[in-house]
């Protein structure tokens, strides 16, 4: 049995999970914000329905608790419901509490992966590189049926999804940077940029150097979100403590900047992990207070519009717009970077269906979501779409390739880095 958090930090203050779930008065105001409800028309796939399920689980009023599993597992954890809710009921956190109550034990693979990500990066890197090589050699296709057989169709899909795993990881590259004595910023490398998209992290670091001067790579482990969502809360806490300690050792003052919105949103929610531990809670609060997501960094940055950019649009990563309230920030940055090429995206803040491992666990719903998303993107005529979350980058790359190959996806930081490079060429100086 994986343990629950039991207490949550809500917009209305600290509450027991039970009180938090009971704060949902079933007004239904969030119904149309919930992508899974909109797609299925099924109340058991809505935020309101999910809150009721968890409440009933806590009240022990479901004779068959497992009947709640699909309802809870299909939640994207996108937080759109919370943004629409007057009481800001934290449905995603409540859903996770429900999942934890239902899980006999967390998935062995998820646990191993979490440990690897936060504690044994070298080992993981080795494994990934081996797998990647195997993939290039066409070997992994052979293990897909095996993965399906052992009940991991999601992973089989994941294996199909990721086409561009690099052979050098971000942390290996960033470790070569000189260490600044008086860092103005600390770069937190989320797992996505670290292991899948080093180019994103490199772009963010280039932007940071241009906008904020000297800074250092935190050389961090996983933020713990993977453990929080799919594994064990205790593992998430362990990851959080390790990162907080790293931050404190690095001076404990400079802004911590990350470039995966799911990750930064989770870093900002560290205090919730330590509600019963006043000392750690305080340290987590000090840490969370200085975390910045890439769109935040770029909101007011005076960057020149990119010359000769094809029509470009912006997709709001859920954990940026709903999780951190950064919708305006991302759009403002994008509008400035794209200049006249900017195209407004309808439903830009509706989840693309990437949502961490969601695409792997609920391929049907996920595909429906990405088809809608790509349809909206195509309607703008954009040839480029930017986002700020790793899952979005994977999901959009996959979806665009399948349904609208004329368009490519990049991270917002990459565009900013291009603008800076272009500025350097033009001799203009970028500044914050």
């Amino acid at each position: 049995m994986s343990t629950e958090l039991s207490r949550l930090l809500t917009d209305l203050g600290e509450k027991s999970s039970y009180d938090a779930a009971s704060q949902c008065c079933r007004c239904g105001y969030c119904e149309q914000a919930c992508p899974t409800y909109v797609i299925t028309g099924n109340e058991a796939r809505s935020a309101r329905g999910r809150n009721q399920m968890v409440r009933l689980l806590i009240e022990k009023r479901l004779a068959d608790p497992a009947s709640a599993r699909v309802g809870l597992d299909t939640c994207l954890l996108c937080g759109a419901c919370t943004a629409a809710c007057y009481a800001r009921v934290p449905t995603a956190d409540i859903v996770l509490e429900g999942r934890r109550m239902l899980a006999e034990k967390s998935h062995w693979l998820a646990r191993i992966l979490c440990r690897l990500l936060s504690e044994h990066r070298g080992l993981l890197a080795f494994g990934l590189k081996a797998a990647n090589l195997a993939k290039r050699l066409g070997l992994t296709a052979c293990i897909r049926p095996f993965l399906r057989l052992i009940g991991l169709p999601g992973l089989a899909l994941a294996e199909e999804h990721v086409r561009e795993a690099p052979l050098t990881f971000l942390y290996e590259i960033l470790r070569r940077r000189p260490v600044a004595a008086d860092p103005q910023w600390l770069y937190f490398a989320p797992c996505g940029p670290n292991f899948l998209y080093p180019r994103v992290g490199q772009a963010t670091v280039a932007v940071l150097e241009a906008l904020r001067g000297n800074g250092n790579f935190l050389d961090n482990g996983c933020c713990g979100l993977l453990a929080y969502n799919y594994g064990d809360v205790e593992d998430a806490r362990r990851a959080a403590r390790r990162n907080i300690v790293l931050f404190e050792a690095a001076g404990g003052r400079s802004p911590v900047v990350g470039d995966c919105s799911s990750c930064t949103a989770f870093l900002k929610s560290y205090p919730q992990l330590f509600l019963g531990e006043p000392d750690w809670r305080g340290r987590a609060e000090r840490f969370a207070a200085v975390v910045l997501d890439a769109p935040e960094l770029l909101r007011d940055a005076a960057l020149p519009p990119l010359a000769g950019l094809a029509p470009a649009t912006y997709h709001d990563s859920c954990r940026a717009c709903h999780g951190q309230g950064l919708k305006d920030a991302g759009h403002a940055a994008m509008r400035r970077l794209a200049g006249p090429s900017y195209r407004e995206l309808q439903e830009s803040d509706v989840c693309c269906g990437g949502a961490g491992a969601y695409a792997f666990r609920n391929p049907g719903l996920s595909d429906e979501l990405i088809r809608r998303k790509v349809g909206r993107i195509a309607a703008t005529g954009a040839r480029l779409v930017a986002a700020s979350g790793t899952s979005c980058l994977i999901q959009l790359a996959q979806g665009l390739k399948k349904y609208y190959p004329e368009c490519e996806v990049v991270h917002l930081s990459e565009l900013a880095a291009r603008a800076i490079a272009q500025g350097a060429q033009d001799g203009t100086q970028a500044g914050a």
Partner: protein
Amino acid sequence: MTHKQMLPKDIRDLQRMLPAGALLVGEAELAAYAYDATAQRARPEAVVLARSVEEVRHTVLFCRERRIPYVARGAGTNLSGGCVPLRGGVVLSLARMDRILGIDTTALTAVVEPGVVNLKLQEELARTGHYYAPDPSSFRVSTIGGNIAENAGGPRCLKYGVTTDHVLALEAVMPDGGLERFSARDAGCELMSLMVGSEGTLGVVTKAWLRLLPLPEGVRTVLAGFTSVDAAVRCVSAIVAAGVLPRALEALDRATVASVEAYNRAGYPDADAVLLMEMDGTPDEAAREAEIVERLSREHGATEIRSAQEAGERERLWEGRRGAYAACARLAPNVLVEDGVVPRERLPEAVRRIQEIAASYGIKPALVFHAGDGNLHPNISYDERDPEQTARVKAAGAQMLRACVELGGSLSGEHGIGTEKREAMRWLHTPRALKLLRDLKRAFDPEDLANPDKMFPEPGGSESGPLIAARALSPQVERLVSQVKECASLGRTMAIVGGGSRWKAVPPDCVEISSAGLSAVLDWDRGNYTVTVEAGVSVRALRAALAAEGFHLHWPDFDGSLGGLLAAKPWPRLRDDILGMRLILADGEVVDLGGKVVKNVAGYDLPRLVLGSWGTLGVMVDVTLKLRSSPRDVPAVEDPVSFAARAWQKKVKQAFDPKNLFNPWFHS
């Protein structure tokens, strides 16, 4: 009525009839269909997610065959317990029937499936420069089907009317499984009006034809703070009397303003009452009306006045109003949203009584009201997990509704009766009127399967009669009543005659019952813009009398008696102005239908149903009409031919006049 529990075989058979994924039976999934936006809960035994009319029909037929109750459901946001399946059975969700089938901007109509979300329709329409007027605050999520079933209102309905005023026709799967279409233009009694607001108890709406309006070019919003609720309401009356009909006229009391300020700092004035008024039309009209409203506000002692024209600025003025519910929803897990309505002039008194009741129960409601039409919403925060608090809040809410009824108002302006107010129906309706409502339900749904246990009090219980005594009968009406009673006891048929302009010869085997000579004005409420007049009055004479004092009916010119006109319904839009009606039923009992409030959803809309019934349902004794403050020329219309009753009209007849005593030739 006994209902069956569903057996495993029932589930299997139902499954076989439906496509994969359309039937839910898992426990957690059933639990997700146990509620609506009230604190009520009851789990269904199965949920059908219908995607087509055929699936709805199959489900209804299946339920009918096996005597399984079913409850239609849209978004489940109603505030009256309307879609809680008290007896289990099937919840029939229409959420997947969400296609907009057509928008015709020339004919100004839209055709939609019931699961279309109000906002989605508005978004589609906005692209064409049009809109659909009903705008319940839940419009972002609630469905057109649910809006129709509850006859939902919204801030905009002061000027443009509630849902029923914007429905042109409906298609519904009736309790017998048949598919029927009803339109406001149908000859004979007006079944479409009966279906609107019937809370899913008479059939499942599967398609609706809606009326569209062009988006106004100019909109002005004015916010004003007053030193008392009385002053604010006096100002509202003055605005209406000045011939200005704002599209929205919302009010908040001091407590509400305080709680909203604490929540979102909308910057509302520190005042005992705040009015938020919105005028639309051409830019000039809107500007002119805004000026009048501002001037009248000043004259009525407004302490602070703010005005806005740009969409963004206007939205900021609305923030406080919109935040009222939000603020309550953050104070405690649950919010009881009461929904009383009183004649507008009685609003200050209603507010005082509600505040007294609140104090005596130790609760702090936030009072929001649609001041233009007398509709009040006390919002009371509580925690349903605390039984004592819940009981106290419910009791207080009930007392507030009682107060509204005692002030000549009604139990619900827009949220419906559902389960929450079914017992309170006794405060408003006589046992005979309740029996009439139940008879109608039985005529339509003899097995009582369509959303049972809603709207009417449980049979039995105290039949003490309504809170306010009915107006006494005049000697002349007494005579009519005894005439009808006598005929009824002898089983003699009767011919109801109004001014006599529409048919001349009374069939020889019928006793003539004439409302000729019944022409008194019984209640002319100048502040409330309503008049109650006897049905024999000449329409032209009535209009002349009203016009002499600056009151108007927006009708074409008609001659003959009022009763005769309404019974013949030569012009469908007469329905817009009918608020109430007193009827002698075929057993000689007298019932009062509707009332003198402009918004009223306490029971089926019988006053409108009776329109066009050609005297087959009862003897119209008097009628309550909505008045306007400015004249308007409406082109003349031709009288339609009388009607031949359709099957569902015969069922209405069966409920009203089972022995076919009134004007029997229509149903022979």
